[in-house]
């Protein structure tokens, strides 16, 4: 677990649980942080900072984390910048338009690498899974992963998903998928190009190779919305 000793935005470090995996030039973070935008400490500071025990490197390239928030019963999401500023500081950018919502959640599924790197590049191998629908249907559904003993990347793309009319879910079986992976990937979609609060999302669970996407009471999508997608980086529990 990431050892957090302080925050500058009013969240008690003991309330933050972030899994971490690191190598000499890689830091993977996985965990959620709930942010109260009405907290006195949240105001007037740039950016949000986590003070942590020594990190594997003192400066990173910028990466991102998913940020989710609710407004008038609708689940929205966007991306926040994440970077390592020094050996003991992880910075997370604020989402200015979400301030008036009162709270939002940062979902770290984040990879961070240092700057100024050289060496023989060893590329990762992508795996493809063939989805089988147990409930609901979909078009052009593609599932890709990169799997290592310590972390995994999960990507899903679908040009369309149709929810089961009885329980409002889509259930997709992924034969051969690692059984140790239990994740909750947000299934993201965009109703239009000009949303003021970001993308929308359906919650989903992936357990024992079965991906279950829930409509979660969301209103029916406009007719021209189709593509759903997600990309998630997770730490494997066998670390």
């Amino acid at each position, binding site marked *: 677990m990431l050892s957090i000793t302080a925050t500058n935005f009013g969240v008690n470090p003991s309330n933050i649980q972030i899994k971490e995996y690191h190598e000499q030039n890689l830091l993977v973070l996985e965990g959620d942080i709930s942010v109260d935008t009405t907290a006195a400490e949240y105001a007037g500071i740039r950016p949000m900072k986590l003070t942590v025990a020594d990190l594997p490197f003192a400066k990173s390239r910028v990466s991102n984390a998913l940020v989710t928030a609710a407004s008038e019963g609708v689940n929205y999401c966007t991306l926040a910048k994440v970077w390592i500023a020094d050996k003991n500081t992880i910075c997370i950018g604020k989402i200015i338009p979400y301030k008036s919502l009162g709270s939002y959640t940062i979902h770290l599924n984040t990879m961070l690498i240092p700057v100024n790197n050289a060496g023989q590049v060893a590329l990762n191998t992508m795996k493809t899974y063939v989805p089988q629908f147990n409930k609901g249907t979909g078009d052009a559904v593609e599932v890709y992963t990169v799997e290592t003993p310590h972390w995994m*990347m999960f990507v899903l793309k679908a040009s369309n998903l149709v929810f089961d009319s009885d329980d409002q879910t889509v259930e997709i079986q992924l034969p051969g998928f690692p059984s140790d992976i239990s994740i909750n990937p947000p299934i993201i979609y965009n109703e239009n190009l000009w949303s003021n609060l970001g993308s929308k999302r359906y919650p989903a669970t992936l357990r024992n190779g079965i991906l279950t996407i829930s409509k979660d009471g969301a209103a029916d999508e406009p007719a021209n919305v189709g593509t759903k997608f997600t990309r998630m980086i997770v730490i494997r529990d066998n670390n």
Partner: protein
Amino acid sequence: MFNSTGNNFGAGVIAFKDVQESNYIVLNAKFTCNPQSAEYQAAEVLEIKVPALSIVRSTIAGVVARYKERGTSYGYPYVRDGGTVLKSWVKDANTLCIEKLSCFNDKQEIIIYIQTLYCMLGQGGNASKGKEKRITCVSEDSYLRLDTSYTFCVVFPKWIFYHMMYGSCTWAYRNLDWEAFLEGLPEDVTADVPVIASDNYGNNKLGGITESRLEGGFWMLPKDERGDGFENTANYVFSFGYLVRDFDATPDVPGRLRLAQEALNGGQYETFRDFDLELIPSPAMAACSGTTGIYSKSTVTFIPESRPAEIPAFDAFFLDNFNGGQGLSIQLVKMEYRTDTPTRSIKVDDLSGMKNLSFKMFDTAVAMAITE
């Protein structure tokens, strides 16, 4: 960075951020001095002693001097901070000079902001022009507007020229602290920057000067710092300064796995601006940042100017923030970096059904071997 080695006006040690080239220097410092001190009163010109500079004599430049004047009038608080611009110059390699004006003689404290470029005197040669980069102000509910024509920066690797002109604020936010994200401003600039108006409502011989903060791409101006003359429609309120970036002077390692280009070209109207791609070798990860403004296209192939041989062909799935609305929507793209042509190519493909490639990218993704 360096500290002053002395001064003739009773100030303490002054810390400088600096960029020093053979024919110009950029210096940033903020310090206070007391016009009531004996040393200040004895000085004809304020002189700061510094470690040897890279230039020995400069043209005249300017620094900003400000005093604070706060109080209450008929029960209402006022902010009548005032000031002006002082001449400043490099007298010799170890001496920085600032003119002394009598208008501050009655003040207990003045704050001097050095955010200044000093040109070496007597330099010839052909000048090259910098490129103006527009800054866009992003604020909650778009309450804050900065003048779009006169809010910009000119970006160099170690410093920027920054100019901001205030536009307006919505009525609901008029008495609140102001903060906004300045898109386009390099995020490695940290500075307290004077905001200058023509009137301070207290001294009609001086301007109104208050202080904003730039940090991490954000601009902040608390309510309690805004001068009374701020929203006087008869004047322009602006900031002007040469600001040193928090740059990393560490030289690139040989064979650095990086491709950075100010404008990656993908066609007449297709540009990936401030493109910066860097890999780590093992496990292979790719960090990429930059912005595009490409509409009505789902796929664009960019051709880089430089071709680092150490970066192999790879694929990666990146997430970015799409530029529509408040720039919060998420887009998934696939990047295909190819080395099968002498020029290399970088193809970006929208996988989110947006049918546009207008985004801000700041992501680290898994670099994968190609499967085609």
